[in-house]
């Protein structure tokens, strides 16, 4: 009992200092009044939450939701075949896994800037296409929803590949032989056996991609160029330019509540499936 207490102490301190305390602060701020130069002051109010009902903000929330959903679906579409390939590879398996994780060796910010250099009017893609005579004026590759989606999918793809790979790797290969043996062609084996059995990995990967995409602000800020306002940018903006901390806090709380509900519902459904 005593040992257990001491072993858990570091993680408890960590969680209280870096999760519970900030959470309480944000919660408190969301019920206060904005200060003239940022910050918060009394009195207590629910005004910030009332403002959330504005269709403008609901639209931003919906857009963010759709953007995160699209990124998750695209990640799944790209990640599944990759994970399947790696799990079935007889050679160089570790090399492939290293390649999946390679982007983590550099800062996310730097990698996102790299996309700027690729996509901008005088970037590599436009210059190449122009010098080849395929296009005559630069394509508008940057500062739109597509660029944001690209950045999100690029950034979070490994979070989808790895959990799916983990479930596929654990799968008994004789199940695939059994399916073929019972008359299933490769497509039927894929959708009737491999995909259903990798479901825990798909769910885990989707959660790991969807949540950070929903709150993403760096990618939409850099690649969306401020035109593509997502909920992450909204929060950031309230704390910086708009100097409305209570409202920024209220948006954060709403976002957190939605994510919690969503994940809780999803995991409950999954555990029912397994049980």
């Amino acid at each position, binding site marked *: 009992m005593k040992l257990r207490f001491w072993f858990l102490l570091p993680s408890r301190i960590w969680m209280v200092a870096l999760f519970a305390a900030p959470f309480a602060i944000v919660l408190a701020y969301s019920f206060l009044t904005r200060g003239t130069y940022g910050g918060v002051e009394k009195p207590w109010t629910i005004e910030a939450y009332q403002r959330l009902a504005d269709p403008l903000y609901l639209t931003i929330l919906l857009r963010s939701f759709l953007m995160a959903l699209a990124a998750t679906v695209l990640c799944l579409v790209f990640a599944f075949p990759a994970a399947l390939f790696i799990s079935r590879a007889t050679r160089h398996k570790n090399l492939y896994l290293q390649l999946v994780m390679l982007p983590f060796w550099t800062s996310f910010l730097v990698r996102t800037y790299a996309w700027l250099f690729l996509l901008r009017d005088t970037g590599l893609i436009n210059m190449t296409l122009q010098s080849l005579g395929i296009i005559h004026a630069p394509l508008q590759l940057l500062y739109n929803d597509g660029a944001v989606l690209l950045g999100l999918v690029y950034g979070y793809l490994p979070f989808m590949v790895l959990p799916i790979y983990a479930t596929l790797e654990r799968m*008994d290969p*004789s*199940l695939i*032989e*059994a*399916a*073929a*043996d*019972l*008359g*299933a*062609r490769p497509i*039927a084996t894929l959708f*009737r*056996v491999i995909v*259903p*059995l990798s*479901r825990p990995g798909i769910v885990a990967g989707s959660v790991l991609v969807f949540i950070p995409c929903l709150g993403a602000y760096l990618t939409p800020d850099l690649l969306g160029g401020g035109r593509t306002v997502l909920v992450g940018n909204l929060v950031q903006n309230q704390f910086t330019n708009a100097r409305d901390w209570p409202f920024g806090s209220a948006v954060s709380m709403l976002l957190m509540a939605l994510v919690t509900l969503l994940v809780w519902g999803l995991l409950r459904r999954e555990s029912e499936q397994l049980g």
Partner: protein
Amino acid sequence: MEKPILEVRQLVKDFPGQRALDGISLSVPKGSFFSLLGPSGCGKTTTLRLVAGFEEPTSGDVLLNGEVVNHRKPYERRVSTVFQNYALFPHLTARANIEFGLRRQGITAFDARVEDVLKLVGLAAKEARKPAQLSGGERQRVALARSLVLAPDVLLLDEPLAALDPKLRKQMRVELKAIQRRAGITFLLVTHDQEEALSMSDQLAVMNEGRVEQVGTPEEVYFQPRTRFVAGFLGAVNWIGGVGVRPEATRIARIPENHGARSTPAMVTDSVFLGDCFQVLVRLDSGEEAVAQVHRSFATFMPGESVHICWSPADEILVP
């Protein structure tokens, strides 16, 4: 004789750095229970996988119903495998596992067939359970039913009883044979357990180091083994001056038997109680060791005692 439903001709299979099959030929009659018996690494499982279509032969042919099927995919062959670990789909119920093959083959009105096979393997009450909720024996029945329901030309069984506990294994031997007879489907069974092969098979092929040593009925291979390997693999043999005698055909006496029996002097080295019999270990004057399995009323021999071991010429195993 009827045309064999399965034939393999001069089958060779090479894996990197190793020849798994070295030109085996077999012919399996329709409706029979045929076993491939041999130690691990003898090529029996490789043979099964070549018939199933999981591997392609390096050379030689696999014929099903007289047709060469070497390059056909598993889903293009009318054979079905019961895997050693059963390979049941964990996300599907017992019934859905059984229906899997029927659905893939586009068969629609299959309820009656599924009911029949559930009854045949005695699983009707457990059909809604998932594999994780079934016992080892029940899982095996699902695996069997899943293949049987497709009425394959040949049903392939890869050590199907190996994962069961010994008591259940003996019971399943009898049941498996009964199911095979009732279903009238050709069974090709792979096993390293000679008792299993002897008790269930109509014919068996004894394999060793990628070759077939002998094919025959259980009696033939047991009583008239053609090689020392076959004789030894199917049961214990005493090699006495070049001829083999099974322990159960070996008798022990204080004075040599008359009326045509052969005998040789020996000394008792040990006596082991086995419940229904005694195993008496002796050393011959030639230095060879022998074992006699005797009824407990004869088991009055003490270590160190000088005896004669006796056997009938009819029980001798003669191999080159």
